[in-house]
């Protein structure tokens, strides 16, 4: 049906008008835009919660919020950032770019695409409405461990149904992406000619389809334990609360790669463009990404080293975790080799991409430290883990998404963004993000526990520095909003190729691309495939 719709509009670039254009949209570009705008809004909502956390932690003792609300802030901050900001941003970029990159007219299932987006606002209405309920918002950590999470008041079913909806949305999005890439590639666009962003997204989509249903199953068990008398996680009825941790992390570890792989894909597009060299080791990049995804299903218990596992289990999960460093190392060295002897320029997308390369690797190293079972007993649930996953999530993933936004913004809008403001955004973000997260390593090693609104006075100095970094980082992100709005409203006209070194089908289209692109599939040869 979509093909017919596309065909009808082929000769006139007709856009639906009014609110209906967005509500009933089946256009991958409009849906991509909605995903990205939604992600930006959620990024600021989750960010506001982080600001509350940092304000409370500016001094020891309790200042602004009570401990229950503080714990709601840490819990909902995580849920909003992971499911509301990072994942929708990734899907938004996939929606915008994948059909143009593979030479398809649209996504394979445009109506399902519409549905998977519009589920999100409903899911987050459910989640955020818990703040106004008896018992408050979820406060037992985003990992939702029973029995603590079951003590939540009226908000519990809302939390669980929100997770169900989010899972449904991302599974539909993932199915759509795979169906598009598998069936709608332009003639000549073989799998080994796909741009790496497309490759990382196929693999991410498979991870989503394999992992999200397991989470849905786990939270359904929580629901029936609470309301229907089952005892999956209740020892009184023969269940085991530790089993939830196994189910959760069986989802949770692939989830971290679901978050990071699209970012890897983005910088794999950007680094060759600004190094003006083809990506080093294309095939090894594909295999490394697939290996990371495969291994991610066998390492989940490294989140649970302190739960009480037999030695053999601890060793297995330690070695499996270490093994992931190998394909990740392949990728890091390939990016570095791509830049080696390239004619590099440092426009904003490249700056953010290099930021990802440096700071993701740093976060990866602390991950390796925690993968070592005996030392993890010291790091577990301290600020060291907070530092680790924020290094991979913020300068690793959020920077990757931002670099993608800067890279493709001229393509989307037809205007160049303000390069000076972009550079300001990069440098303020990079400096503040390190002031924000680096000292957390020290606090963690010194023994400051996570998810606690108060701390011993000897931790005060670093906490104040961290909070200042946090506020600066939060404010810096307003620059992004400014740049994007300014770019949408006008600016220097962007060429079709946008960047001197850019290759790929999306750069053969006009800037901005027509509402319906590639209604006649392009012919892809080695010369026009990925550089």
């Amino acid at each position, binding site marked *: 049906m979509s093909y017919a719709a596309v065909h009808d509009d082929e000769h006139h670039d007709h856009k639906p008008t009014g609110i209906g254009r967005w509500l009933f949209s089946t256009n991958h570009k409009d849906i991509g835009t909605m995903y990205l705008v939604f992600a930006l809004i959620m990024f600021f909502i989750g960010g506001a919660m982080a600001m509350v956390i940092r304000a409370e932690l500016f001094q020891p003792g309790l200042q602004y919020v009570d401990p229950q609300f503080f714990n709601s802030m840490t819990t909902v901050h995580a849920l909003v950032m992971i499911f509301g900001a990072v994942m929708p941003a990734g899907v938004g970029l996939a929606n915008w770019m994948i059909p143009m990159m593979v030479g398809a007219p649209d996504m394979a299932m445009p109506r399902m695409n519409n549905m998977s987006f519009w589920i999100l606002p409903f899911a987050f209405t459910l989640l955020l409405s818990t703040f106004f309920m008896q018992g408050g918002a979820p406060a037992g950590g985003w990992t939702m461990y029973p029995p603590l999470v079951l003590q939540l008041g009226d908000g519990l079913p809302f939390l669980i149904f929100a997770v169900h909806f989010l899972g449904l949305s991302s599974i539909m999005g993932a199915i759509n992406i795979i169906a598009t890439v598998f069936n709608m590639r332009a003639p000549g666009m073989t799998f080994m000619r796909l741009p790496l962003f497309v490759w990382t997204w196929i693999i991410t989509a498979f991870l989503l389809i394999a992992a999200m249903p397991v989470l849905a199953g786990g939270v359904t068990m929580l629901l029936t334990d609470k309301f229907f008398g089952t005892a999956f996680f209740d020892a009184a009825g023969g269940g085991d609360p530790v089993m939830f941790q196994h189910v959760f992390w069986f989802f949770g570890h692939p989830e971290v790669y679901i978050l990071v792989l699209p970012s890897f894909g983005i910088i794999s597009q950007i680094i060759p463009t600004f190094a003006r060299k083809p990506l080093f080791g294309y095939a090894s990049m594909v295999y490394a990404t697939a290996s990371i995804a495969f291994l991610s299903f066998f390492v989940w218990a490294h989140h649970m080293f302190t739960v009480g596992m037999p030695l053999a*289990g601890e060793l297995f999960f330690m070695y499996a975790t270490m093994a992931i460093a190998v394909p990740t190392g392949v990728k890091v060295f390939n990016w570095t080799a791509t830049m080696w002897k390239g004619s590099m320029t440092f426009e904003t997308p490249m700056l953010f991409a290099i930021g990802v390369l440096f700071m993701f690797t740093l976060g990866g190293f602390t991950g390796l430290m925690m993968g070592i079972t005996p030392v993890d007993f010291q790091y577990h649930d301290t600020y060291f883990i907070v530092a680790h996953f924020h290094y991979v999530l913020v300068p690793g993933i959020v920077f990757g998404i931002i670099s993608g936004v800067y890279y493709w913004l001229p393509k989307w809008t037809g205007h160049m963004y303000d390069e000076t403001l972009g550079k300001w955004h990069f440098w303020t973000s990079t400096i503040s993000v390190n002031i924000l997260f680096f000292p957390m390593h020290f606090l963690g090693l010194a023994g400051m526990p996570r998810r606690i609104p108060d701390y011993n006075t000897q931790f005060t100095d670093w906490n104040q520095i961290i909070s200042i970094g946090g506020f600066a980082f939060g404010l810096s992100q307003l620059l992004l909003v400014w740049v994007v709005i300014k770019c949408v409203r006008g600016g220097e006209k962007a060429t079709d190729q946008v960047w001197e070194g850019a290759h790929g089908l999306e750069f053969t289209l006009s800037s901005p691309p027509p509402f319906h692109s590639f209604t006649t599939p392009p012919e892809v040869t080695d010369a026009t495939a990925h550089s």
Partner: protein
Amino acid sequence: MAEEATRTAKKLFVFAIAMFGFGYAMVPLYDVLCDVTGLNGKTGEISQTAVETGYVDMERLVMVQFDTNVNTALPWNFKATEYTMKVHPGEIAEAVFVVENNSDKDIVGQAVPSVAPSQASLFFNKTECFCFTQQVLAPYERKEMIVRFVVDSELPETIKTMTLSYTFFKALDSDAVVSDTSPAKAIDTKS
């Protein structure tokens, strides 16, 4: 092309639903894994005859410690009469526990055992245990309960002390069971 895409999507939906099922399948798989490996301190059950014909290692003595806990939802007292016991691997030993209902209501409780260290749990077998059944206590009733157990003579030499820990929980269906069973008696359930 559109039909192909729909076919791909259908296959992937089936895969997603299968993974949802896998989430549930992890529950029995986890139990099996725990039984096989002794993970989580799961202990074994053994028949009386198998024990009587087994080999007793008179050379060795193993210290068994008893630890008792009561979940806060259950208004009971629960103690072991002796806190430690020395046994020869292979010999049948018996430990006595005392449980007391502090409330004025009939309550059903269920004890959940665990053995530490987990390597030892594979070698800890019970022939009789109050944890095999739910226990019903009348108001202020006091009851002695026994555990008859055997430490397998195959127990590694390195393990010299092990702890048997029990936690008593209020049975999930306590209220329902109490209202349609009288007088108080033990109700058969799985261990």
